């Protein structure tokens, strides 16, 4: 009896998580897959007809936005790494007793909805706003100069909103490095730069990888930053999906686009993992 119980225990333990995944991941995915192959219009209803043309039509019409989203995602991710690494490094090695305070400060902005924070940037940076108006009045900038509505504004917003997602995983990886390993490198006549390059960086890479995983995916599919800070020439794929769902009630196109985006992001992530030399993506991400 006891043995049976012991054998079954893992299955019982996995049950809540498994049910959760089934309910909130598998079922919605099947529903969305079904939607993406349906045909019709909102008045008469959509019906399932294996309408693969939804996919080709979606790519035809919206490849520009898809590619743009991936570029913005990649650029923002690079900026994120460059900005986050020094922050994480400093907190991990020089934070001392106040490490948790610094981490708390980093997360503090998260107590305000990110939509609100993004909208407040719009108020600050708007064409006649507190930043640009004085500069225009003293003639430093031309009257039609604007920050909002440019790719830079959108990428800036993305970097701003996702910074903690990059800092935290890198911090966790750096935190784990035994200081004695670095000391050993110095003892073996490595100068600080070499020690960083040969010891710290390789050990921090899994953290960078996890950070990329956690930021590149949501950044590329984000629709708030471009909506609030962007213009008609910075439309990202998330906005298209949102508009197809919530403006045009064109559920099939929206679902097809979601699947295309998902596929492209998965391919991107696996390619990145290969390039990094990590055979097993999930193993690294789980560390």
């Amino acid at each position, binding site marked *: 009896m006891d043995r049976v119980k012991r054998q079954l225990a893992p299955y019982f333990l996995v049950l809540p998580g498994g049910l959760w995944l089934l309910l909130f991941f598998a079922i919605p995915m*099947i*529903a969305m*897959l*079904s*939607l993406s*192959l*349906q*045909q*019709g*219009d*909102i*008045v*008469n*209803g*959509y*019906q*399932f*007809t*294996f309408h693969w043309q939804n996919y080709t039509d979606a790519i035809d*019409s*919206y490849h*520009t*936005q898809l590619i743009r989203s991936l570029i913005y995602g990649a650029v923002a991710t690079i900026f994120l790494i460059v900005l986050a690494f020094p922050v994480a490094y400093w907190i991990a090695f020089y934070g001392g007793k106040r490490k948790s305070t610094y981490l708390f400060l980093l997360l503090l902005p998260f107590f305000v909805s990110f939509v609100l924070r993004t909208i407040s940037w719009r108020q600050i940076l*708007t*064409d*006649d*706003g507190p930043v640009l108006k004085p500069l225009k009045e003293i003639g430093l900038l031309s*009257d*039609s100069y*604007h920050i*909002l*509505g440019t790719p830079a504004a959108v990428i800036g917003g993305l970097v701003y909103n996702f910074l903690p997602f990059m800092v935290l995983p890198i911090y966790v990886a750096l935190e784990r490095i035994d200081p004695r390993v670095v000391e050993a490198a110095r003892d073996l006549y490595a100068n600080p730069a070499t020690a960083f390059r040969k010891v710290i960086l390789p050990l921090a890479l899994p953290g960078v990888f996890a950070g990329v995983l956690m930021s590149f995916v949501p950044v590329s599919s984000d629709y708030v930053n471009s909506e609030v800070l*962007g*213009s*008609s*020439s910075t*439309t990202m794929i998330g*906005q*298209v999906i949102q*508009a197809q*769902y*919530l*403006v*045009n*009630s064109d*559920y099939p196109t929206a679902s097809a686009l979601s699947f295309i985006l998902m596929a492209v992001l998965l391919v991107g992530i696996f390619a990145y993992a290969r390039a990094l030399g990590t055979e097993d993506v999930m193993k690294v991400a789980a560390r």
Partner: protein
Amino acid sequence: MSANISDPSLLRGMTQRRFGRRDALRLSGLAGLGAALAACGVQGKGTPGASAAPDAVEKFWAGKAKTNKIDFANWPLYMDPKHPELKKFTAETGIEVNYQEVIQEMGPWFAKVQPQLAAGQSIGYDLMVITNSFQFSQFRDSGFLAPLDHSKLPNYTKNADPAYAKEAFDPGNVYSVPWASGMTGIAYDPDKVGRKLTKLADLWDPAFKGKVGMFSDTQELGNFGLLALGIDPAKSTSDDWQKAADHLKEQKKAGIVRKYYDQSYVDALGKGEVWITQAWSGDIFQKNLSENRNFEFFVPEEGGTIWTDNMTIPITAKAPVDAITLIDFFYRTDVAATLAEYINYVAPVPSAKEQIIKDAAKLSGADKTAMEAIANSKLVFPSAAEYAKLHYYVSFEAASEQQAFQKTFEPIVLG
């Protein structure tokens, strides 16, 4: 207004599935997954307009009673923020009104309430103001609008401009009565632009690069593309739409368009994000009044459009009797007059003009001139010359045509 979708049975015939769900499954051989996938179909309603059933009005209104509470969904800037009309209504009838400015654009509004209406659930509103657009026909053809009992609308019968009952999107005002009409024209900030504008072509002027606002509503956008090329939207063909779309794409490619806006264009104009923008007539007047600005609004020489926003009762409304009482209340001359005085949109009650002049006579000084200006305003009571410049929306014979129009202009907005 020319015919929208006139015959619901024709519309149904043209949009019918070409092959059934079961055929598709048999073809696929994936019956298992197929069944799971097919079970996720989205229910439409597709009931032909209730005008087909002569007893629809009696059927809907039978057994409906006053509840003394009503939820009212409207657009922003469509009533004095102090809601004097609603206060008066509550004082006179005892019906409490929860007034919400939740409608910013027709597409999102339809997409938001469609699932609840299709499931026969209340959308939380008993009265909503919707524009004569694609979505109006979608609401009507899905059977989402309650047929109005005209015996409960004595003021409307007495005071409404009879022209409205002839509008093609709802002949005889079966499902809707107008809240206000307005014009789509152009607004600009004269201080920034530095000259007087009169033309649609000014929206294409490279001098205003990155400072031009256009509407994200495909009909509003498409109409202006057509008018800029000298094409009357109501008579346009699908070839014309393509030409207009190309013209609009040029405007976008040249970086002239800042963004495609919903109701938020007013805010963007106020913040200086745009200097010149497509605009709805009354908004600019209100913006000038409330923030002491001096933006200009004009109907371009090439023409503008005229539309009507309509009060409708969702079929699932919990308080339809209270809602229709409120609808009729807005057709009282005095109420229509105070509303027009504030919102500055075209009033569907012609007698409101005399009322406004009478109100003005009681005032003095600046208030008096302001009030007289409203009574004589071409925006509130357009003259014949003004009407001549205005065009009706593109009319669609069938849902497929409407989809084609949307697909032509959508990629511009979602660029």
